[in-house]
Every structure is written in C-alpha cells, then in structure tokens.
C-alpha cells in the first residue's frame, strides 16, 4: 500500500514537462489591468526622478552640440568689403605721389581706356512694303 502511494506521489514525465504539450501549459499573461508592471514603475518616485534627470542631461547635450557648431561658424552679418577693385587685380599706388607730368599722362590714358561708347546700329524693319 505504501509502495503504491509512493508511486502515485512520484511525478515522472508529467504532461507539464512535455514539450509537445507545453503550449497548453505555458503561463498566460495576466489579463488584469490593475497589475501592469510598466505603469506601476512610472508611479515610482525614484523612476520619476531618474526620468527628469535624463531629460535634463539630454537637453544639455543638445545645447552643447548647438553651441559648438555656432562657435565654429563665422559671423555672417558683418559686411566685409574686398581689398581689391574689380577692374584691377592689384591695388594701385596713389597718383598724387607721381610727378605732375606722369600724373597727366597716365590720367589721359586711363580716360581713354574708359571710353567705350558704341553707337549701335538702329533697329529697323527690312520688310516694309512686303
């Protein structure tokens, strides 16, 4: 009798350990909404503090990146005139430093280089009378 009861109490290869039937015995998720673990964590004050600190660190990180980028950029608002003129590739010396005769000669030649008036032909209709 004792032997029989011992055999009954022994759990050898029960259906719970059988992989073929495991789907039947696998633990089912809780359907009770009141015990959601994530929401429970959110209500935890420690978690709240950690979340706020992470947020601050994130904002500071973004600001640091923006600041470093803006430091590298040149200031675009200030107009910087070019030191050379568009006509001549090299800046010329002041003509007042020249002797009067050379001043007159070079100014005359300079005036000639600026004379470029073209009296362009008139636009006419060659089909008049056609």
């Amino acid at each position, binding site marked *: 009798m004792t032997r029989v009861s011992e055999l009954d109490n022994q759990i050898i290869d029960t259906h719970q350990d059988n992989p073929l039937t495991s789907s039947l015995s696998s633990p089912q998720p809780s359907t009770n909404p009141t015990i959601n673990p994530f929401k429970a964590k959110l209500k935890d004050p420690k978690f709240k503090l950690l979340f706020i600190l992470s947020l601050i660190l994130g904002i500071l990180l973004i600001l640091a990146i923006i600041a470093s980028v803006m430091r590298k950029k040149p200031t675009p608002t200030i107009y910087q005139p070019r030191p050379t003129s568009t006509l001549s590739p090299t800046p010329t010396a*002041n003509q007042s430093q*020249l002797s009067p005769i050379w001043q007159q000669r070079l100014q005359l030649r300079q005036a*000639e280089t600026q004379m470029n008036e073209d009296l*362009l032909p008139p636009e006419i209709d060659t089909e008049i009378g056609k």
Partner: protein
Amino acid sequence: MLLFVLTFLQTILGHPIFAQTPATSAATVTIPTISITSSSSATPAPSNTPTPNPAIALYNQYKNDYLFNRDQYAQSYLDYTQKKQIYTKYNTVTTQNDKIDATKQALITRNNTLKTYLRALRVKLDIYKTSDPTNTNKLQIELSKLENYFDEQNTIVTTLNNDADIQNNATDFRIQYIHVQQIEAASLVQSEYNLRLSTLNELKSYITQLQTDSTLTTEGKQSLSNEIIKADNALTNLNNAQDIVNQNMGPSTYQFSDFYPDAKAKLVTANQYEIDIINDLQNILVRYSNSQ
C-alpha cells in the same frame, strides 16, 4: 529650468561671439582705404588736357542728327503699321492709297536714319584715324558710298506708286542691307581698334622712355619687361579683332553673320591689358623712382 537653460546658453554662446566682433569691424575700417585710393586714381582726364579733336564735336553733332532721324522713323513706322492694318480690314482704294503714302514715308525716314547713322560712324572714324589710316580710309569710302546709296533710294521711293514697285524695292533693299550691316560692324570695330591702338602706342612710348630714365632704379627698369609682354598681348588681341572682321567681309551672302560680338570680346581683352599696364606703370613710378 528655463532660467537655467538661458544662463547656460549665455555662458556658452555669449563670450566667443562678442569677442570676435570688434576684430572684424576693425578689419572693415582699414580695408576700404585701399579701395578708395585705387578708385580715386580712376578719375577722368585732368583739366589741363590737350585741346579736343575737332572731329569729336562734329561726331556729336551727327550723332544727335541720327538720333533725331531715328525718332522720326519710329513715328512714321507706327503710322505705316496702322495704315496697313486699316487697308487689310477695309480693302478700299482710299485705304490702299493711304497705305502706299505711309509706306513711302516709312521708307524715306528709314533711309534717312541709316544714312545719318553711317555718316556719324564715318566721322567717328576720323577721331583716331592716325592709328590705322589705310583701313580706316577704306571703310570711310564704303560708308560714303552707302550714304549716297540711301540718298538715291529716297529719290526712287518718291516715284513708287503701287504695291508691286514697293515690293520690288523692298527686295532690293534686303540684299543691300546685308552689305550695310557688314560695313556698320566693321566700322564699329575699326573705331575702337584705332582708339585702343592709339593708347597702346602711347603706353609703349612711356615704357621705352622709362627704360632709359635715370631717375628709375634698376629694379624698376627690370619690372618694365612685364609691361612689354602685356603690350604685346594687347596688340595680339587687337590684331585678332581685325582678323575676325577680315574673315567676315567677303561678298554678301543671303544672311548677315554678326561677327561684331567676337571682335568686341578681343577689343575688351586688349583694353584690360592696357588698364593693367597703366596701373603697373603707376606703381613702378611710385616705388622705384629715385626722385621721390
């Protein structure tokens, strides 16, 4: 939180940017002094320049005459287009006669415009004619012939009394106008060629004079060799402009190929070399002259 962020931004961004501003503005103050000096050098001819060429005054007079005739042509052409439209609409003898009269008036004013334009060009060629008298003379003769042609045309136009004669006249004009355009473009190129060559010859004489000038240092004389090269480049471009003209001055074809822009580009390059030479001579005289 917001206060913290603002403080952080001010700390990070504030100092470096504000620190750079004075340095940049200082640069903007010093740099323009150079450009002002260079621009002041590009002033027009001084008051004590030699007396102007009498051809310039005559050219200005003929130019104004041409501009007046051009306005006259614009008015009569507008009248011609209106009369033509009216005749197309009503197709009567009266409107046809009106159209013929308006056409003749438009043709006469067109001939006058072209004639006065060619005359102005011919006189303009006189201004720097001494640079290249042979080619300039040839063009002036051609221009005179065309002026006479338009005078003759005006006489012919007054005798036209029907559409057929007017149409024949228009066909003849279109053929002749190809030659007119060639001469116009060639004259414009020749006019500027003469001016640039005149300037270049003067600059060359300055270089030659400075090469033997005792007041100029050896270093200054050595740097004049660059100016000789620039003068040669300017002359090459001037000759190229004339080559372009000569290649396109053959017998009249059915259509005028406009060679003026290509020749003009060469003239502009030559002028740029001359500007460079003037600036360089100015610098050489200031830097390397013993008398300073």
